[in-house]
């Protein structure tokens, strides 16, 4: 048994950290965030060259076939760099296609993602009072109609994977698909409301596999959050070492120092949980779903704490637009609520440990998935 990273994993981590530091520094993040879609084609091409767009997909469709611990590591580095744009949404859409699509669909949808030619989005939530994953009510056929909200990266997407109550569908951006911005906190990853009106839809036949795909997506969000937490911790510690008040670096004062220590504890803990969830999902262990919910639950709450402390430690500087911490803080809020917040996942954990049943994330939302899943 060995919880440390192996050599390949360490190389992936080091290379990614270096790559994002040079290719996507905060000045770039800010520049790209101010563009309309926060999608930068030049940067995207570099992702493809690095193999990031293909890393986690099967080799038969042009992917590199890396595992989910590796995915957690790359997402962590992306989170640390606050990489803007549709990488996460494309990754998740690809994961959905891989899980539910036919071989022929994978050839058509996955290969362009791997090659770096296509970006994609996943569409889940609907505007109704459920406000969470239970809100999925849309149904599809040869065409699909209805509105999906909180669709990250939709304006840049070549196609969308629509999760409906009767299964998942692939829909090309174009006729019958209207995209409206949903201005929200995370300026680096933009949300859209997407209205489908008799849009041509392709059913993904193996929608029963969606549960695992949703767990993978949830892990990706949690892992990305860990990277952001690390960066906010680093920024806070750095500031605590350099900012002087009353003749001392503020980090000398325990009120500040202990905030840093708590952020360290929570960041390390969130990391342990995310790596473990990656491993458990990769190995398909019986506790994989539980591990994912624990990772997402913990990172959702902990990132908010780390962000709160990060701003507090920076004082007035922390409240300025110019300081980077708020950009992470915004991302944390988006990630906290994506794929179930802490309360949602605690209830899922409770079902697993108290009732001994696996309430599939999708199950409550979708009778069809329930019978297949």
């Amino acid at each position: 048994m060995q919880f440390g990273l192996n050599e390949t994993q360490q190389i992936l981590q080091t290379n990614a950290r270096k790559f994002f530091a040079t290719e996507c520094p905060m000045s770039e993040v800010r520049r790209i965030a101010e563009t309309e879609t926060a999608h930068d084609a030049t940067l995207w091409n570099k992702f493809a060259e690095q193999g990031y767009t293909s890393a986690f997909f099967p080799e038969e469709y042009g992917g590199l076939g890396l595992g989910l611990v590796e995915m957690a590591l790359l997402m962590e580095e992306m989170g640390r760099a606050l990489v803007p744009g549709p990488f996460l949404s494309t990754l998740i859409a690809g994961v959905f296609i891989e899980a539910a699509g036919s071989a022929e669909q994978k050839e058509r949808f996955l290969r362009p993602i791997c090659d770096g030619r296509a970006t994609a989005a996943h569409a889940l939530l609907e505007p109704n009072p459920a406000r969470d994953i239970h809100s999925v009510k849309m149904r599809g056929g040869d065409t699909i109609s209805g509105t999906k909200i909180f669709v990250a990266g939709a304006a840049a997407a070549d196609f969308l994977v629509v999760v409906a109550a009767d299964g998942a569908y692939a829909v090309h951006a174009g006729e019958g698909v209207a995209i409206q911005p949903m201005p929200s906190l995370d300026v680096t990853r933009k949300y859209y409301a997407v209205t489908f009106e008799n849009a041509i839809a392709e059913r993904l036949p193996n929608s029963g596999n969606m549960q695992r795909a949703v767990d993978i997506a949830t892990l990706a969000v949690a892992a990305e959050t860990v990277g952001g937490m690390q960066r906010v911790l680093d920024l806070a510690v750095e500031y605590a070492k350099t900012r002087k008040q009353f003749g001392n670096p503020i980090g000398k004062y325990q009120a500040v120092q202990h905030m840093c220590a708590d952020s360290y504890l929570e960041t390390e803990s969130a990391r342990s949980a995310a790596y473990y969830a990656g491993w458990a999902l990769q190995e398909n262990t019986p506790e994989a779903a539980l591990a994912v919910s624990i990772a997402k639950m913990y990172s959702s709450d902990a990132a908010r704490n780390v962000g709160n402390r990060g701003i507090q430690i920076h004082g007035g500087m922390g409240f300025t637009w110019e300081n980077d911490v708020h950009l992470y803080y915004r991302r944390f809020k988006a990630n906290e609520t994506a794929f179930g917040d802490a309360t949602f996942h605690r209830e899922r954990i409770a079902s697993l440990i108290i009732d001994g049943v696996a309430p599939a994330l999708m199950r409550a939302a979708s009778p069809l998935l329930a019978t297949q899943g």
Partner: protein
Amino acid sequence: MDLKLTADERAFRDELHVWLSANVPKDWAERKYDPLEKRFDYLKAWQRKLYESGWAGIGWPKAYGGRAASTILQVIFWEEMAKAGAPPFANVLGLGLIGPTIIAFGSDDQKQRYLRKILSAEEIWCQGFSEPEAGSDLAALRSEARLDGDHWIVNGHKVWTSYGWAADWCELVVRTDPAAPKHKGLTVLLVDMKSPGVDVRPLKQITGETEFSELFFRDVRVPVANTVGTVNDGWNVAIGTLMHERGTFGAGLQVMYRQNIERLIALARSTERNGKPASEDPIVRQKLAQAYAEVEIMRLNQMRAFSKINQTGVPGPEGSIQKIFWSELNQRMQQLAQELLGPYGQLEGPDGYAVDHGIWSYGYLRARGNTIEAGTSEIQRNIIGHFVLGLPRSY
């Protein structure tokens, strides 16, 4: 990263499992409520049995009765012990702290003389660090030793000494150079508690038990051969002990915590809230799930840390997060038990209406000690701030 057990690790686990199934005493479930001293004799006998079968100090070198097992095997060991509901070791501090210190800093003669008797529980050890004026600021301690030929003459006063009442030996930190800066004039001695001039007084704690003691030393003669490491380098020896205390000591705890949570889930099923089982109450469910998740994260943090220790060989200052985690989590868990049990949570003793022999009222109080013993939570946060994150020392 690969969390599957290797063939060797599986073989080890299976062998231990078989042994425990045959040997864990059946009456422990009852005997664990015996008064402290009676229970202690029982635990000594149990440890002797573990030792004779080669299950004590498995991480120690083979030459001293151990198995030179990796940290990973040690983790497996604690997990299996807890899963089997095995009684704990009697010589907790000897095994967890003092033995490893002697292995790291002791002379060959000391290793030959002491280690096996720690494993067999023939000699029980205590840790004489804290003093009335020197708790967190350990280096401010005043107990002193003067050289007199081939003996140290020890005078001083130690307090909150766990197992002081049961101990045959004490790892004692004393000042040997009063002129040197406070960290530079300390020395660690191994002191026979039966020496003339050692006075052990019981010290009652908030639980009503006397788990710890007060120690008085008056002109106690300690052979110079009982010095651990070099004279006046006692700070480094003591810090080595404390790293073990903070980093690896909690290994068996996560399984115990898991069992606590499982018990709380069972209690939630048999407790009513608003006419329904509390296990169906959304707030109780949220809290149980949170506690369960935290226990799991404590396990994962430990596994990650142990894997690192396995590679580097020694626990480092990051161990402070384990200490903070297990101590503060136990307090949260005990509070959750109290919320679940309502007024019943305060009942003591084996009889009447008390739940689970009163372990929850005891646990509620005992958990307060967790964030004080082995270095307070504030001190652990100072350690993380300064030694891990590189912030300036606050004092």
